[in-house]
């Protein structure tokens, strides 16, 4: 490590007039940093590299294997099950992001306006954030398979009188609803912070100029909140792409495989003998995640002034 400090670039620094840079790094700083670096490397990059390597083999997870080149990738790209899981995951994520942000924004506007019970209401709306996703999915599973059909039957609504979760075309609606139920608080807190940061005199000035309540919302609040919307959309989308717990609790990927997310598909490689194949899928998913991350960086760059 000390070699770093004697490289030409390092040696050139003092000339630019920063004398303290010539000081040797105190060894204790390495002691502070190394545990994190070592454990982190072993826990994430090393498994990632191992996984990527095995995606080029025919390993079933144990025993002998040999290199097979791009066979797994070629197979993955022509596998309808994998295409379906990506289609489902992206579609579900887009819809959920939309639902969560519309709901959270409206709630935030309401919770920062002149209402009674403001503190208690805010506390209530944040509760879903502290509840375990799998457990609340089990609770909703009961409601969707028993209470909702019962209500649908007594109200005479045919499509609600059978369980939403057993319908391959509609099960995703239940998953969006429960995921949104849990994700709204996080977005809500960010929107409340944003709304409270808007100075009140902006609204007073608009009111004096005769702006209606709707005009104030669309002409002042929304433009000033654009940065917060971008952040919430990106954070949410990233989380929803990894959806697992709530889907396991609601449909476990069913009926059939109609609600199986990419994460769930990858995990099927654990016991099914598809280890190398699903590692190829995981590697593709990783590339997708990185692409989205770069998109995120390019969008949020310059918005650090939040």
């Amino acid at each position: 490590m000390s070699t770093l400090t004697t490289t030409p670039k390092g040696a050139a620094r003092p000339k630019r007039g920063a004398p303290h840079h010539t000081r040797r790094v105190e060894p204790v700083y390495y002691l502070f940093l190394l545990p994190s670096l070592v454990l982190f490397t072993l826990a994430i990059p090393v498994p990632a590299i191992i996984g990527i390597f095995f995606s080029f083999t025919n390993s079933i997870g144990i025993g002998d294997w040999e290199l097979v080149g791009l066979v797994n990738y070629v197979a993955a790209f022509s596998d309808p099950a994998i295409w379906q899981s990506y289609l489902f995951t992206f579609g579900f994520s887009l819809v959920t992001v939309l639902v969560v942000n519309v709901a959270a924004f409206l709630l935030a506007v309401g919770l920062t306006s002149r209402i009674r019970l403001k503190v208690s209401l805010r506390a209530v709306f944040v509760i879903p954030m502290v509840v375990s996703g799998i457990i609340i999915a089990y609770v909703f599973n009961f409601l969707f398979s028993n209470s909702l059909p019962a209500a649908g039957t007594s109200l005479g609504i045919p499509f609600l009188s059978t369980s939403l979760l057993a319908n391959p075309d509609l099960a995703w609606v239940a998953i969006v609803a429960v995921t949104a139920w849990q994700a709204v608080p996080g977005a809500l807190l960010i929107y409340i912070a944003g709304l409270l940061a808007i100075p009140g005199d902006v609204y007073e000035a608009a009111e004096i100029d005769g702006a209606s309540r709707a005009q104030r919302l669309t002409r002042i609040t929304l433009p000033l909140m654009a940065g917060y919307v971008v952040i919430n959309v990106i954070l949410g989308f990233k989380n929803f792409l990894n959806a697992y717990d709530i889907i396991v609790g609601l449909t476990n990927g069913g009926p059939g495989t109609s609600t199986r997310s990419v994460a769930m598909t990858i995990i099927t490689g654990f016991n099914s003998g598809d280890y190398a194949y699903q590692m190829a899928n995981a590697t593709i998913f990783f590339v997708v995640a990185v692409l989205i991350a770069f998109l995120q960086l390019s969008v949020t760059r310059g918005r650090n002034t939040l």
Partner: protein
Amino acid sequence: MTTTLTTPPRSETSAPSGARGRARKPRERWNRPGTLVLVLCSVTVLLPLYVTLSMAFKSPAQAVDGNAFSLPAPLSVQGFVQAWQLTGFPVGLAMSLLVTAGTVAATILLAALASYAIMRNWERRMFRWSFFYLLGAMFIPFPVVALPQIQLTGRLGLDNPAGVVLLATMFQLSFSVLLFTAFLRSIPAELEESARIDGATTAQTFWRLVFPLLAPMSATVGIFAFLYAWNDFMMPSLIISDPALQTLPVRQQLFQTQFSNNYNVSFASYLMAMAPAIVAYLFTQRWVMQGVTQGAVKG
């Protein structure tokens, strides 16, 4: 910037809304329809929690009658007794507490130490690169590396709660280092220099001066680590191979395969697994809301 964002809610939550209303009455009118709409919306949050609570206290006969919204009559704790035994609640609770406490402590400690070393040696390439290296993991979600991690932890004897603590901490590290380094930038160097002049070593300066100053950010980092470790299903279910060592959320799977019609038992079990986090939140809600807002806006 975070301070200006988080101060308003603090001042609002600390003052009872009634008192504030009286003070401002001449100028402001309460928005009654708005309040009503929000109260109605809050039903969507409270309804599933109410169902969990009422189902848990029902007798087995009432629990299967199909009405989820009725109040328990007669009140029965039989569900809790059975859930306690069926899920091995005491061991599950111990495992969940172990995983959560371990993840929270390890995340705060490792991230604070690493962030301090990085920020005080930012001009050194190794420390700067370490920062971006650790941050890079924000782009690697758990599903991507789950399969090799299951294999490795199995081979290293870490297919237990200790392995979950290690992995959960490492997945929290990127975000936590980001928060700590941002906060460290706002601590003036003069503070530390005066400690040094008094003869404190770097380690002493960190423990006695810097780490206490980091407390607000440690709370934020800790809250995120707590919520993740306490509630997560995916990682423990895949990493911990011995069912006897599973955490509480994973144990609830039992009611999907067996005992699936003993609703009073399953809901009593769900309630026991959810309650600690909800109760902890109700007592610390101001902190949690502040901490999460701070973390989200910074992150």
